């Protein structure tokens, strides 16, 4: 039996990789993919604790997180397409219309 804290370490690794991706990449598509990595890290935690506590509520929470991830991807990619149509770029550091 793999102890629960090994799953927590895996989840922390995926979370950190996702955070690095969000903070350092310029392409908005890859930033959105890194967000999916972060949400997956949370889901691993929830399912691992659900296994340890023999309580199915953690898996229900994971289903809700997957729902939110789907909604976030749809809206985020819609915004990306609208932005690309206006400015012809997908780079996050060129989205500076409100900066001065």
């Amino acid at each position, binding site marked *: *039996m793999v102890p*629960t*804290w090994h*799953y927590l*370490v*895996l989840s*922390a690794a*995926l*979370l*950190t*990789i*996702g955070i*690095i*991706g969000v*903070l*350092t*990449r*310029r*392409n908005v*598509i*890859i930033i*959105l*993919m*890194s967000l*999916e*990595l972060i949400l*997956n890290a949370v889901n*691993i935690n929830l399912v691992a604790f*659900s*296994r*340890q*506590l*023999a309580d*199915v509520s953690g*898996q*229900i929470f*994971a*289903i*809700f997180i*997957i*729902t*939110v*991830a*789907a*909604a976030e*991807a*749809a*809206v985020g*990619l*819609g915004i*990306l*397409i*609208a932005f*690309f*149509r206006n400015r*012809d770029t*997908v*780079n*996050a*550091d060129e989205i500076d219309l409100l900066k001065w």
Partner: protein
Amino acid sequence: MMFAQGSFYVLAAVAVVSALLVITRRNPVHSAIYLIVTLLSVALLYLQLQAEFIAAVQIILYIGGIMVLFLFVIMLVKLDVALRQPPFNQQWWVAGAAALVLAVELVGVIYLGRGTAALPQAPPGSLQPNTELIGRTLYQNYMLPFEIASLLLLVAMVGAVLMARRKAS
């Protein structure tokens, strides 16, 4: 027992390595393929954790739905210019250092708390039949969140259509 342990470490290594490849590849199509590998190995980890329903949902919804959406958008957006530009922004070393500190902190806390937070492991088979248990809990205890999730999906659908629509001129 040995097989379960070994396959956990293999799957975890595959997930972490392909996650690293997701954030370092220059081409977003390659990133999407590696993200699919990560999601698939996480789905297999769910199977190991006796969460068969979540594993199926992960494959059908993430890999079949969200990743196809990503690939569609990659095809719609012209990336020739972006491919020739540097993939990382100027603050990458600050972000990397901060994330490294965060990783050390997280792993340290998890390692130090592994004994104090250790609860008795549930006996195997306690979450079976998985799909039936999830269905019962979802419709008996979590009815209102379920309805709110449906509303959220409706709002996201309307929002996505509104955002991506061509302006009627």
